[in-house]
């Protein structure tokens, strides 16, 4: 197992390199260079200042050296400085990251703590009234578009009924209770599609597992239904669910930008949106590299969990 984990960690390196090359290439695919873009249509500034800036960004060196310098900085956690605020990009990201982490944790908690038990129950009581309700609810859950639901929740909730704090973000460090109050609903909205998907997935996976020969063996050994379900069925039926969950985490990350925007939460998504508007190139590329790396790491974790669940995985 340890060997497998090491190999998987090492295999991340080429993936991350690929990602970094892609991100770096965006610098050079645009006409002109970063400094031109930054300046946009504005009257060109003092050529001397521009030269200085180009030098600072290593733009006067050959491309491969530029890449290596940039990569070396990135590895050390230096993603450059924002053109607009002048602060290090890393600092800007880390400053807003707690919002995203919290949203993700809430969304995933809903998915795992509600989705998996609900799917199991639905499968175990197949064709019951409860199963019917769950089916209708999940179909609604993944056919309602996220942005629509988010907008409706904000409109109804904060403007008409006043049971949501009116789009007022409170940091966790200031007031944990208020913070959770204003994050739970955005987190739920973010996770809803995935939640519905995981319920359906768990249901069909449990149904499939219940039909397996080894479940019959467990019953023939005299196991109680509870033991059969939680010892023999659960672990097996989670294997495909974990795979889907791993893919869905990417979907969740994608949904962050929208959730932040609608609920006016100061996360990395809004940072990127704002940076695009202001042509703050360093922030855009830095954040994208950062998010891509996080995604690769999450995939690694999913793979390791998967290997723990399924001993048949060959390392």
């Amino acid at each position, binding site marked *: 197992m340890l060997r497998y984990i090491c190999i998987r960690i090492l295999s991340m390196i080429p993936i991350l390199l690929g990602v970094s090359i892609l991100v770096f290439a965006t610098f050079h695919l645009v006409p002109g260079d970063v400094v031109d873009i930054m300046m946009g249509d504005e009257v060109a500034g003092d050529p001397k200042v521009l030269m200085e800036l180009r030098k600072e960004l290593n733009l006067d060196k050959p491309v491969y050296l530029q890449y290596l310098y940039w990569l070396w900085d990135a590895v050390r956690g230096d993603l450059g400085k924002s053109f607009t605020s002048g602060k290090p990009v890393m600092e800007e990201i880390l400053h807003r990251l707690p919002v995203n982490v919290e949203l993700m944790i809430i969304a995933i908690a809903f998915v795992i703590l509600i989705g998996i038990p609900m799917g199991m129950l639905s499968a175990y009581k197949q064709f019951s009234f409860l199963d019917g309700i769950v089916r209708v609810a999940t179909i609604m859950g993944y056919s309602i578009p996220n942005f629509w639901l988010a907008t409706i929740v904000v409109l109804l909730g904060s403007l008409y009924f006043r049971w949501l704090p009116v789009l007022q973000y409170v940091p966790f460090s200031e007031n944990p209770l208020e913070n959770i109050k204003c994050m739970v609903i955005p987190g739920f909205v973010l996770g809803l599609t995935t939640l519905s998907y995981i319920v359906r997935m768990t249901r069909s996976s449990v149904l499939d597992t219940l*039909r*397996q*020969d*080894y479940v*019959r*063996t*467990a*019953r*023939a*050994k*005299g*196991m*109680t239904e509870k*033991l059969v379900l939680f*010892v*023999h069925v659960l*672990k*097996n039926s989670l*294997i495909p669910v974990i795979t889907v969950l791993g893919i869905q985490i990417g979907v969740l990350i994608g949904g962050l930008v929208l959730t932040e925007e609608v609920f006016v939460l100061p996360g990395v998504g809004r940072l990127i949106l704002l940076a695009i508007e202001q042509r703050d190139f360093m922030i855009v590329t830095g954040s994208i590299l950062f998010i891509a790396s996080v995604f690769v790491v999450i995939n690694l974790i999913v793979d390791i969990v998967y290997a723990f*669940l*399924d*001993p*048949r995985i060959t390392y």
Partner: protein
Amino acid sequence: MAGAKRPMERREDDRLILRVSGLKTYFFTTEGVTKAVDGLDFEVRKGEVLGLVGESGCGKSVTALSILRLVASPPGRILEGRIEFMGKDLLRLSDREIRKIRGSKISMIFQDPLTSLNPVLRIGYQLSEVFRYHKGMDRMKSLRESIRMLKTTEIPSPEERVKNYPHEMSGGMRQRAMIAMAFACEPSLLIADEPTTALDVTVQAQVLKLMKEICREQETAILLITHDMGVIANMCQRVAVMYAGRVVEYTNVFTLFSEPAHPYTEALLKSLPRLGAKRTRLDSIEGQPPQLHRLPPACPFEPRCEYSAARCKEEAPGVTCLREGHEVRCHYPINGKKE
């Protein structure tokens, strides 16, 4: 058949372990009702090996599952009949009571040991479950017992094997582990549903020998389900031949081979390769296997029977007792020894 008469014997025969009488298990599917088991009778006595033979789909596995009430429901349902095990009707027990019997007094071995073992749990865990559940042992003690049990099935280095997952073992070893599991609580009855069909020919013989030995030691009776007449000849004392959910002939193993009385039994034996040939599986006999939801009204074997007469189309044959311990369900049983 055996349950239909001899009410006197019921009290006398204290060697009787299992008596199935009038068992009906149907499947209610969208295509109609499949009468997988339709009025089945047989008995198993202490230490005896009863063979249950018949073509694929005649209801052997459903019979086995019905005894432990493991038939998938829906679509399956046991409609009527009695399954008396040591004097108690299993069909009338509560869920809790039948669970206490499963795996301890009656245990089961299935055809494919790979799919019958849980792929994500270690062999030791799956084995020790039986000890923990039925004997209330703790983790350590049950694991020690599991190793001891594996040792009796002649698995090499059982201390290592308990740490294995099923996919890390060979087919023969997996079936030995299943056998260890089945015999863990010294059951009175073992139901073995084609225990060697999925194994290599060489391993088959070893596994059968092992089953025979442990059974003799523990005085366990076996209900042995098989396609293989060679296995029947090797293992069984008595044989029940099944056709379309019923027993059509019920006799001891010598009579079965020397004087088969039912036309279906005769056809089965004819389809066997002659002595000395390696394979002795019954692959095909003339005609189509019966369709359980569209059976002929009278004798189900009639469309394929070479002795069929007018009466066979009109009246369902009852049970005829040719002599003590040899019963047949046919209007015109074949008599006289075969060459």
